[in-house]
């Protein structure tokens, strides 16, 4: 039988429940394991193959004319986190495990250049 206020028991039940949201930034949620956030790049492992730049779907990873520490003839990649979608394809494509995704998710900066991982 239909009646108004059918949800009242549910409403009362919710009174004792804590809010779902938290007061960020004073209170922070623990990031999940294996979350994809800021990129960590190890220049000493990179061989300059450029697969990361070729596979990047958003153009966040690109090769620059800086000689690669391992092979001087090759270039090195830069990662512009302004454009990054954090899909982790570069991490997956890298044959030498030079790219890792950390759980550092707070990436707000005052200057644009600070968001480029070199």
């Amino acid at each position, binding site marked *: 039988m239909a*009646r108004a*206020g*059918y949800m009242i028991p549910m409403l009362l039940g919710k009174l004792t429940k804590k809010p779902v949201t938290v007061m960020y930034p004073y209170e922070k949620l623990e990031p*999940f*394991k294996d979350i994809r956030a800021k990129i960590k790049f190890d220049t000493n492992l990179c061989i300059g193959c450029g697969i990361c730049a070729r596979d990047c779907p*958003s153009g966040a990873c690109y090769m620059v004319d800086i000689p690669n520490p391992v092979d001087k003839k090759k270039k090195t990649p830069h990662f512009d986190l302004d454009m990054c979608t954090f899909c982790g394809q570069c991490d997956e494509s890298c044959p030498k495990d030079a790219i890792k995704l950390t759980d550092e998710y707070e990436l707000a900066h005052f200057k644009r250049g600070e968001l480029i991982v070199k």
Partner: protein
Amino acid sequence: MAEVTIPIGPIHPALKEPERFMITIEGETVVAADVRIGHIHRGIEKLAESKTYIQNLYLTERICGICSFTHTTNFSQATEEILGIEVPKRGVYLRTIVNELERIHSHLLWIGVAGHEMGFDTLFMYSWDDREIVQDLLEIMTGNRVNYAYNTIGGVRRDMSPEIAQKALKAMDKLEVAMQKYIDIGLNEDTILKRTQGVGVLSPADARRLTAVGPRLRASGIKYDVRKADPHAAYDEVPFEVITSDTHDVHGQYVVRALETLESIKMVRWMVTNLPDGDYRVKTPRKVPEGESFSRTEAPRGEDIHWLVANGTDKPERLKIRAPTYANIANVAFNLKGAHIADVPMIVAGIDPCMGCMDRVIIIDADKKTQTVTDEAGLWKFANDWYANGGKK
């Protein structure tokens, strides 16, 4: 009484996405409705031609913010078909699990949106609260809440550890209790019944004629689901029922979606317990040989179609996408006629419209300012002439 034409949109406070609805009313009754689509056309199909298959996985994911996984599944399936690759059983099961989790979150989202449209914001808040259970599970499993980046050509990118499986089973128990509540509320709460019963009635014959898909079609009493009709992924092995309703209205859609969520919860539970061992992905070549393939999946909103043509390089020759809202928009325009003006938002929200998914192409003849109806042959002739003249009329 005089007829008044009210334009709603493309930019309007009531619309979440830009589309134009021209509604002619006489008093409080809608006498004519015209839906103009194309205001959020993004050129994704053309863009797909300039990106590699790996990049396209992330592009197709961004067709829709809610049913992102079904688009990548479709694209991966189409590519795998041309490559002639068989995805390992575990990979197929994991894909199906995420597909069903996505259906749960999309349907819970719809219940919230429907509540909001009928002025019942309490339901909106509560259903989105319970949706966090599945969102958290998706984040643990795939690494992200919305655009999961979980699918890849040849399988999935991450395995499911036993701990995650345990968490998934616990989350499903919690969700089942929550869903029972929403079914109970949907069947008994006066606010929902008064705003949805008898609104947007689409008879089975009209649903077929106007190519309705998904929950809209099943709410019209037609038992059709791509998961049963043309089983993809692991749907031929997972036991489930196709839910239909005989009320043919928006309330029927509520019931279909709520019961479908319950079915999805059971399916996820079954798949997690019967997850096969072994590999979850295979390595695939970057270049795809010449060929074409057609793939369809049952997205939360209905049937989603991808048609892919490969030309032997690492980029597709053509990718055609038919999102479910495109198939459903015709019956919305039909249903708006004769409706009460206050029911317009409910009818539009009923199909769970996703305009961003839908807008693929639009042809506007601004010079002639005329409207003509052409058949398929006429459209073919137009297309051939247009190309023969080098893109001129």
